């Protein structure tokens, strides 16, 4: 039994590594899923993101983060194109999502009026 447990652990670690490796060189979208984010509409924003990705057949990695202390700006959505700065958009609505996907994720132009923070590449 013990060894099966260990195997399970190993598999989980390998899966995490695989995920990290697969995500290299891809555009990343991160959604704030803390209590403040969820209360402000993060779930609906995420659904809109997933639907845009599905509709436009984009190869994007979507992940989540917890509360980062900017509760009044939730829902927060980060976009990071490979090798570029990580841009945080705030008070994002379902309607904003389409703009962010088309202008930033597809065309590479930051949607300046929605930006609330910016993290330099490699500055994580």
């Amino acid at each position, binding site marked *: 039994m013990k060894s099966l447990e260990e195997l399970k652990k190993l598999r*989980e670690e390998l899966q995490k590594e695989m995920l990290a490796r697969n995500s290299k060189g891809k555009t990343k979208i991160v959604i704030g*899923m*803390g*209590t403040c984010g969820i209360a402000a509409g993060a*779930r609906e924003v995420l*659904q809109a993101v*997933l639907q845009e990705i599905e509709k436009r057949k984009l190869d994007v990695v979507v992940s989540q983060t*917890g*509360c980062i202390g900017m509760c009044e700006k939730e829902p927060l959505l980060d976009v990071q194109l490979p090798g570029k700065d990580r841009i945080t958009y705030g008070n994002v609505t379902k309607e904003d999502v389409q703009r962010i996907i088309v202008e930033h994720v597809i065309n590479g132009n930051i949607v300046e009026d929605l930006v609330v923070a910016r993290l330099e590449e490699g500055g994580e």
Partner: protein
Amino acid sequence: MRELSLHILDIVQNSISADATLISIYINEDIEGDRLTIKIGDNGRGIPEDKLMHITDPFYTTRKTREVGLGLALFAQAARRCEGDLQVDSGVGEGTVVTAFFSYSHIDRPPMGDIKGTLISLIALNPGIDFMYKHIYGGKKFFLDTREIKRELQGIEINQNEVLGWLRGYISEALEDLYGGEG
């Protein structure tokens, strides 16, 4: 929060933060007994005894980013407003179970809301975690176990666009059956 499904999404985030690999969500809408039970269990790191008693206190959190922990307190408040309550059972290394119950017909009880959105969100963002979902409505049942789905997928990621699309449809139909069905 406007919906119970949002509370569920939020409470499950605690399990995710506690490094759970298996999370169960149980909902029982017992209309005859006028009782709604929501139970969220995980195999995460658990909560030490001395912290457990403060856990639904709005000023308690182990996070460093903000002073107050809100999730459990908000969920407990919602339950207590509806002749219900919330209980947290946990032990270090034993995982955690959060159980909330509500008077089903209470006027202040938030609606279930978008359960499908909550499930899809959890699965899309946490492909490495397994979810067991059990939903009972007036005696009818809906089960979903991501381990079974992953077995069918044979190595294909559960959060790929196409798979999520299929899951959306599958959950929609199952919920329609549960709530409407032949009844």
